[in-house]
């Protein structure tokens, strides 16, 4: 399957435009800032990348999307113009030192200055940028439209689901690389290096690899140069970014032989995960999934370890966090990452999770990785 075709662009653009129509917007400015081209991409899709296929390098990128008429991509770095032109689905690419003034000119030419204009990406904007916008648009007022734009991220297109599948394969390869290199005496940074090497060669654009380790790990952390010892437990997330989508898969690995306590506690996580996916189908709220997982963990006697600082959200996706209070309902085509990750006083923090696609009458896994506790001893045997 070939990804990134013109039809995909038209499909994505059509989705945003129909949302604009529903919300009464005549034009939309979509902003991207280097701030979200970092770890932030885990939790927030870069909307400029999503709509234009241009991944920002440099300082600013802005997409001007009128309800009717030709869209444009404005970038601030002249040296990146050639790449932007060849990569962007949007044909009209312009470079300008002041993208806001340029966008005003464009809107003026389209006769849209006096209409309702939405601004997307304000959550990444610094105050100083707001000041610049005020200077460039002295008489106009924008309405904040980030939430609306994010609603275009689901349901996923066939292309996007394919990207998820490939991303999951890259993730699995990164995980396998860690398993192969894992032995007492290596540092977690070396493990990170091995897995990132493999993932980058397979086409990962960026990585937010997290490796927590220790006899009693407390949290997922970035690698710290810690030396891995026999009996340690590793909580892993290779987290590659592939074509603008972060695919998060978490697993737990024991260095050596997993003790019966560790196996038992990990069994709670597996049960929590299975309980949640059993409920997963359109119409179910995110909250219900969180409760399903937490019920299992609580009934095993760990109710007091369900909340920070011990444990956190039970998953995330474009429709929000899988957390108590989120009553957003699942619809077909949503991808949701579920992870019952929890801290157990006997073993430390353990992780298990992966993205799942909501289908018309249930769910579909996007990776083939087995759902189990890994241990180096067992991997050797196999």
């Amino acid at each position, binding site marked *: 399957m070939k990804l990134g075709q013109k039809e995909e662009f038209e499909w994505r653009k059509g989705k945003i435009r129909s949302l604009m129509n529903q919300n009464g917007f005549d034009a939309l400015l979509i902003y991207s800032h280097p*701030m979200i081209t970092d770890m932030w991409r885990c939790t927030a899709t870069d909307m400029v990348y999503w709509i234009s296929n241009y991944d920002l390098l440099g300082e600013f990128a802005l997409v001007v999307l009128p309800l009717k008429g030709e869209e444009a991509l404005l970038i601030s770095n002249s*040296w990146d113009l050639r*790449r932007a032109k060849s990569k962007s689905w949007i044909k009209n690419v312009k470079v300008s030192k002041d993208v806001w003034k340029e966008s005003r000119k464009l809107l003026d030419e389209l006769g849209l200055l006096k209409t309702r204009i939405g601004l997307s990406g304000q959550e990444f904007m610094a105050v100083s940028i707001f000041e610049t916008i005020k200077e460039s648009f002295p008489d106009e007022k924008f309405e904040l439209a980030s939430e609306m734009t994010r609603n275009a991220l689901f349901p996923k297109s066939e292309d996007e689901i394919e990207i998820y599948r490939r991303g999951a394969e890259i993730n699995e390869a990164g995980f396998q690389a860690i398993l192969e290199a894992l032995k007492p005496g290596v540092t977690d940074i070396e493990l990170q290096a091995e897995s990132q090497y493999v993932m*980058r060669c397979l086409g990962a654009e960026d990585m937010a690899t997290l490796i927590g380790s220790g006899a009693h790990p407390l*949290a997922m952390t970035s690698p*710290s140069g810690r030396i891995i010892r026999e009996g340690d437990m590793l909580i892993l997330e290779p987290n590659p970014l592939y074509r603008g989508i972060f695919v998060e898969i978490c697993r737990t690995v024991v260095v050596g032989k997993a003790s019966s306590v560790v196996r038992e506690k990990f069994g709670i996580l597996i049960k929590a995960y299975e309980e949640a996916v059993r409920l997963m189908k359109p119409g179910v709220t995110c909250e219900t999934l969180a409760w399903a997982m937490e019920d299992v963990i609580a009934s095993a006697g760990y109710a007091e370890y369900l909340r920070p600082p011990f444990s956190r959200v039970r998953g995330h996706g474009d429709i929000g966090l899988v957390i108590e209070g989120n009553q957003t309902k699942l619809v077909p085509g949503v991808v949701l990452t579920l992870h019952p990750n929890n801290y157990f006083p006997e073993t430390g923090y353990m992780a298990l999770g992966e993205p799942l696609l909501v289908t018309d009458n249930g769910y579909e896994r996007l990776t083939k990785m087995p759902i189990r506790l890994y241990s180096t001893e067992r991997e050797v045997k196999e």
Partner: protein
Amino acid sequence: MIFKPLFAGYKAGPWGWNAGLMPVEEFNDRLKSVNQEMVQRGIDALLVFGVGDSTWKNGNVCYLTNGNGTYARKSVLIILKGIEPTLIGNFIPRDLHWEMRNSTWLKDIRIFDNLGLGIERILQSSGKGVKRAGLVGVGGLDVRSYAQIMEILRNINIVDATDVIENMRVVKSSNELRIIEKGCRVADMSIRPVTGNLEEGECEYDLIARIDMESRKAGARNFRFLIASGSDTEMSLRMPVHRQLKKGDTVLLLLAFEYWQYWVQIGRTLTVGNPSEGQIALYRGVLTAYEETLKCVRPEMKAIELAEAIVDVLDRSGYKPYLNSDFRFGHGVGVSIEEKPFIDDHDVTQLRTGMTLAIQLGIHAPGIGGVLLSDTLLLTRNGCQRLTQSWYDLLRFADAKS
């Protein structure tokens, strides 16, 4: 106010700071200088804002706390006269504030999701009637937090004091220099297996992955890069793509490595197979200009004057027409990947002895091809000293074969 590490002998790894490399005295000195500056400017409270999830976006907070900025997405260091500073932040995930406690010299770290509320509490409980507050880096905050904080500070006279910290950061101490020099060794080590060893058929991804792996094994905690390869029309820097390297290609690499939270930068030009005569001629021309550029660096000149001098050099060697309108010939390096001074057409910061600069000269244009050279420099009394020492390989490679 004297700080002691919470856990004596705690080795945080490259993720945190290391007491051996950066002694606590240095941090007490930094805070002392901040206090002096506050007295001079008549500021009762200094609020240092850190925004983002990387050390280089939190440079000011990292610099003053000995801590790692990646633990909080938003944080404020509150410095009041005569009291130990307090760091507040919305630590996400919240358990990581334990790690923060381990990596910093500070004792007082508190979690507040609402920074405005946190600032109010700290200012009130200190019992000091704050009349005049200096803000550092407040422009990076998002609008909602900014509005909240301004509401809290509405009865206080506010001044922008960003330059207090930025001016302190530009000149590096001997401890900082030691780390940066080691970082430059990491850069040299990471690039060495690649130079002179490019193979046909290798992907851009593979090449970057190799450097990534080398650098992490050499001790780098973070690695950022730009690459360009191919014919003369494909010479603008970008993220690596799935392009296979072909015989005769020029490859430009601009790499930055983070070692113990300090950044260094290096840039080199390579060829796949023997370079053509055209490539050699262009490379020699740009290298000569680059070496002349290094001779232009003098302390006591302004950043913009250095930029002008470099434009002059390029004019004399005939490369001026290939300059982009938004050229930048370099920038400071330190806790931030790019920091003051910026060698461009509007920064008037004065260069000073002890600054570390990443200088970069790139010529890439259709019709002529591409060359990129970059090094991390230390400004000395007489000029500059190159800290990254990798050989300029294309030339050596060419000489050996011709």
